């Protein structure tokens, strides 16, 4: 497959995770997902900066969030995620574009990261879907790679 042309349909972006590398399973019934990278800054402004702040990059960090619909019998959903959080499992996560097919679209790029669940919430209203949301803080390098 070749790299996708044009604007990507957000529904094609999927999150796969597992407790060992290269053994990731899709998180079922996800309705929204995001990955966020940030870079702290070091202020190096001095008297010679001409009245403008000068900076250099410092510590980089990243987190991944998703939310979805709860299903008791799913392969990977809230029940499995809460087990991982309680156990303190390190999770291996792929944030990828499956394109119009069911697998990662070869030629596109994906995130391949590791991290720990730091926040997990299940919400149940009245006569509505039971939902869940999760935040995972990423540890180590954020890898951006071409899907093969």
């Amino acid at each position, binding site marked *: 497959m070749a790299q996708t042309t044009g604007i990507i349909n957000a529904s094609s972006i999927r999150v796969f995770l*597992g407790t*060992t590398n290269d053994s*990731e*399973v*899709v998180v079922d019934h996800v309705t929204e997902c995001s990955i966020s990278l940030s870079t702290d800054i070091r202020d190096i402004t001095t008297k010679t900066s001409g009245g403008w702040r000068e900076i250099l990059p410092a510590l980089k960090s990243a987190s991944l969030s998703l939310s979805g619909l709860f299903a008791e019998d799913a*392969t990977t959903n809230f029940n499995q995620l809460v087990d991982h959080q309680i156990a303190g499992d390190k999770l291996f996560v792929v944030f990828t574009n499956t394109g119009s097919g069911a697998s990662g679209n070869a030629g596109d790029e994906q995130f391949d990261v590791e991290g720990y669940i730091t926040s997990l919430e299940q919400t149940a209203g009245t006569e509505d879907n039971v939902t869940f949301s999760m935040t995972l803080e990423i540890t180590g390098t954020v890898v951006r790679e071409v*899907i093969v």
Partner: protein
Amino acid sequence: MKVTLQKPYKADGFDWPAGKVVDVSNKFAAKLKAGGYLDKPEPKPAPKAKAKSQTPISE
């Protein structure tokens, strides 16, 4: 990608029976394929029919 296991998979924290359909990452699919979990088992050869004993034709 969605794959169908052809034999039970008990590793990586999973305990899946044969026939289970799972949606896995490309790398996991490759790993399962390499381990022979996605290959359909070879069909067993049909049992050979017993050869009938030939009665000598009397002249």
